[in-house]
């Protein structure tokens, strides 16, 4: 069993406090070390660690940091500020690891941000926390206050000439704000609509300034990398992806929860770690990386859980949200639940996504209620083809994940709904639980 990067102490009393972090978890030692290094050396170390973004896209973190311009100036030649942003808008269905970090070890994230600030030459960071996280926001704010008191934040940190301030910003209930450019718009007090890229945030980010956005878990891994060394971190992972991974296992398992594990275990092993299938039932399908990741069938679970293996299997590691469904689940209804979510959360900016997610939700709902027709299945594929890759952000691609994979891998189940004129799991005449919302969908 390799070392734990993030969750070593999360079950201990007072683990969220700065005193605990300093005494038991080498707290802020990495920051001391980083401040003796040049910014470029810190970026290099993170590059060498093979840390990849934990928010879902898996982009190499060190490379993202290196995109930040060293000395940006405005049209008049005055230096521009650079901003560091933490994406704590956790909302990908099936994902609940950032909430664990924020409530149990918020200082890891904060220390990671201060180190990142030093590395990219930023003096100001924003933590964008989803609005529903009232308790989490309080805990993070308290941790920030503690860090200021100890001199880890503010002016001349630990006697150096580095200054860094951290501000919490609360979201207000929009899934799309997890997309980094939508998040930046929201941070500016605007509608959370994704921006066209280029320009990328490293050129034009928050408030028009060069900005770098990383996920909570990504920042939380940084102190370990600096303290223990990039090599050790890199060795814990695969050739192209360093470290451990926080897997969030939910659904029909005996012990749902967050598990920090090496990425080179298989989905089958992960389900075993999470206590195996609930009530001894058989596995039917599993979503490996948050709701947007295409489903895997029970026959496909020997796949390894790292970014590249899951991509090769036609799905994605995404945010680490593993949703396990047993044999009693109607896949058509499960997909319908997911598509209703996407319909609700599409920001409406691009027609393909706004209309497509609406149509898909309606069609899956109709099929689930026995009112589908055979041609619907081909039509679903056609709609998805008009969505993926056709829009400003990756939301439309995400919608097609559950839509296409459910029809492709469980086609017979869809056909049974259509030919029998009802959901075979429920029988004819069943009132669908979502019927009361039908009028609202028209």
């Amino acid at each position, binding site marked *: 069993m390799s070392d734990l990067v993030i969750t070593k102490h999360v079950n201990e009393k007072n683990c969220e406090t700065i005193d605990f972090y300093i005494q038991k978890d080498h707290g802020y030692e990495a920051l001391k070390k980083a401040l003796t290094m040049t910014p470029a050396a810190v970026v290099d170390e993170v590059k060498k660690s093979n840390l990849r973004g934990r928010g879902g896209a898996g982009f190499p973190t060190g490379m993202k940091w290196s995109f930040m311009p060293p000395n940006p100036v405005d049209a008049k030649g005055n230096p521009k500020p650079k901003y560091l942003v933490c994406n704590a808008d956790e909302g990908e269905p099936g994902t*609940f690891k950032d909430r664990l970090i924020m409530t149990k070890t918020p200082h890891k994230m904060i220390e990671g941000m201060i180190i990142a600030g030093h590395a990219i030459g930023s003096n100001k960071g924003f933590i964008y926390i989803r609005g529903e996280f009232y308790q989490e926001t309080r805990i993070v704010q308290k941790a920030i206050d503690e860090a200021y008191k100890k001199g880890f934040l503010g002016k001349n940190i630990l006697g150096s000439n580095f200054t860094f301030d951290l501000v919490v910003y609360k979201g207000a209930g929009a899934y799309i704000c997890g997309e980094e450019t939508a998040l930046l718009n929201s941070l*500016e007090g605007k509608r959370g609509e994704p921006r066209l890229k280029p320009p990328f945030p490293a050129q034009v980010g928050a408030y028009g300034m060069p900005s770098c956005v990383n996920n909570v878990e990504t920042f939380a891994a940084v102190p370990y990398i600096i303290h223990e060394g990039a090599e050790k971190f890199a060795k814990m992972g695969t050739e192209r992806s360093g470290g451990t991974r926080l897997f969030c296992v939910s659904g029909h398992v005996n012990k749902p929860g967050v598990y920090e594990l090496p990425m080179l275990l298989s989905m089958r092993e992960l389900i075993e770690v999470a206590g195996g299938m609930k009530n001894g039932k058989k596995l039917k399908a599993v979503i490996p990386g948050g709701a947007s990741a295409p489903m895997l069938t029970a026959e496909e679970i020997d796949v390894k859980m790292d970014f590249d293996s899951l991509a090769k299997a036609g799905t994605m590691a995404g945010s680490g949200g593993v*949703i396990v469904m047993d044999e009693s689940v109607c896949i058509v209804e499960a997909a319908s639940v997911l598509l209703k979510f996407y319909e609700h959360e599409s920001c409406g900016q691009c027609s393909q996504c706004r209309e497509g997610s609406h149509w898909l939700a309606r069609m899956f709902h109709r099929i689930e209620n026995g009112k589908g027709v055979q041609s619907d299945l081909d039509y679903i594929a056609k709609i998805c083809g008009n969505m993926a890759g056709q829009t400003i952000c990756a939301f439309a691609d995400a919608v097609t994940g559950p839509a296409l994979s459910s029809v492709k891998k469980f086609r017979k189940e869809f056909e049974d709904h259509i030919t029998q004129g009802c959901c075979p799991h429920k029988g004819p005449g069943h009132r669908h639980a979502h019927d009361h*919302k039908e009028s609202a969908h028209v």
Partner: protein
Amino acid sequence: MAISEKVKKTIEGIRHQFPTTQALLIPLLHEIQQDKNWISPESLKDAAEFLELPLAKVKEVATFYTMFKLEPVGKVNLQLCVNISCWLNGSEKLLHCMEKRLKIGCGETTADGKYTLSEAECLASCGTAPVLQVNEDYYENLDVPQLNKLLDQFDSELAAGKVVGKSTHQPGVWP
């Protein structure tokens, strides 16, 4: 102006943290909602005036985010997650239980103004599903008997004039 002095003071206190005035709009709408429990059309006008922003800008933001309540909500705002992991763990039963007990549907408020019921999308509590958010608090790993007990508790707390759902209630126990 209908924005309370307390809210104004809070916003003035954070003004220096942001490079633009518009960045204060979302914090301001949060504060108004905390203060008045919803954001009225008058509050939107006041927010625009206070931040010197066009009213249209304030409205387009207020209507984008689901957390901003542009109609009055009950004292206890019940938001049940109905997304995949909660659904797999029986959130529908909880929804039916609340609809039957409170005699309202989703998006509605009881006639006495005590409860508002709505469906929420993933609250990042999938490992402790199903979850119900009550104002600021999460109640996790719920089943129907526990839910009924909880609602009994809210009934008596409301009758005693207490504030519900704003405790320092800690999120669930993690494995």
